[in-house]
């Protein structure tokens, strides 16, 4: 009688997934933990995350180039997953698991957020004139919204001010950390999903 490796529930014969918790009936064949029973060591992810995060952060900070929504961030996570997989010995682990792609993406996103925040500082100075115009427009809009006042108003104006304040840098960094790590994680997972060969034994 088969039981779920996650929750211990009894599984029907030939069941693909546990009906209680949704875990696959048999371990995913290319999962990170499958080959050796242990996930890949963290050190394998650091180099790829550093390289991908640096490129991604710079591209995401350049005005005009960064117009493709989160494409650079998704691509950065995917590139990190590719670099990690490329270094794996053939025939052993063979392919990355989704968890590996996610982990590579998260690390890339965190580093990329730091790089993007720092790289955006010189671009901010270079586009000071445009920022001044945008700030004037926002101030005019805010003057029609008296409910937005105090710290909220100051925060919004500081984000588009050519005068760089520590608060603006900190806020940008926090937003970038959250969004970049999330989207780079998704990029890493989707890269693994696209390149991984379908399992012929499943289903």
């Amino acid at each position: 009688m088969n039981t779920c490796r996650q929750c211990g529930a009894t599984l029907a014969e030939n069941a693909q997934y546990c009906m209680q918790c949704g875990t696959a009936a048999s371990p995913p064949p290319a999962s990170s933990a499958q080959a050796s029973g242990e996930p890949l060591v963290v050190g394998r992810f650091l180099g790829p995350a550093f390289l991908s995060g640096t490129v991604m952060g710079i591209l995401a900070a350049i005005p005009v180039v960064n117009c493709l929504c989160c494409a650079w961030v998704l691509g950065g996570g995917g590139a990190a997953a590719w670099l990690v997989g490329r270094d794996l010995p053939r025939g052993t682990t063979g392919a990355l698991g989704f968890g590996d792609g996610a982990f590579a993406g998260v690390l890339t996103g965190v580093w990329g957020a730091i790089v993007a925040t720092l790289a955006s500082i010189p671009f901010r100075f270079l586009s000071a004139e445009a920022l001044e115009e945008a700030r004037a427009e926002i101030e005019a809009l805010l003057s029609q919204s008296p409910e937005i006042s105090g710290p909220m108003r100051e925060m919004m104006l500081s984000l588009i001010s050519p005068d760089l304040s520590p608060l603006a840098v900190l806020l940008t960094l926090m937003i970038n950390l959250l969004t970049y790590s999330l989207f780079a994680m998704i990029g890493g997972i989707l890269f693994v999903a696209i390149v991984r060969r379908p399992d012929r034994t499943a289903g």
Partner: protein
Amino acid sequence: MESGKIAAAPPAGSARLLLAAGAALWWGAIVAAPLVDLDWVYTFFSAICHQNPDRVWHLAGAPLPVCVRCASIYAGFLLALLGRIPPNSRFLRVALAATLLEFLIARAGLDLEPARAATGLLLGLAAAGFVGAGVAELLRDRISRTFARADQ
């Protein structure tokens, strides 16, 4: 077997709930922003979307904080999680190819909002199952094991 089916663990209980709650909150913030003037939401999403006023939907006369494509992807993602659509690599590849094709056609001059919305929705629907599996594995392989080692 169904062609293209991947033996990925579907998002196990807590991971799926976590993702669905996050996706609902994400989508809720996008819809609420124009309705109740949540300016910080616009600031937040400016980090990951161009917010071009010509390429966004409007709600109650105000623009959504993300473009049509992003809004459609997020909607598809949430729907797939709620509908428990399983991961399928062929579906993902087709959705990604459709999105890229639409992008290229739009650059060539035929830029249609319904096409952006449809391909975005498809991509969100196709991606959610894999993201769920990835988050479940990440939690199992990295977070749970780290805490387990700390307890020893």
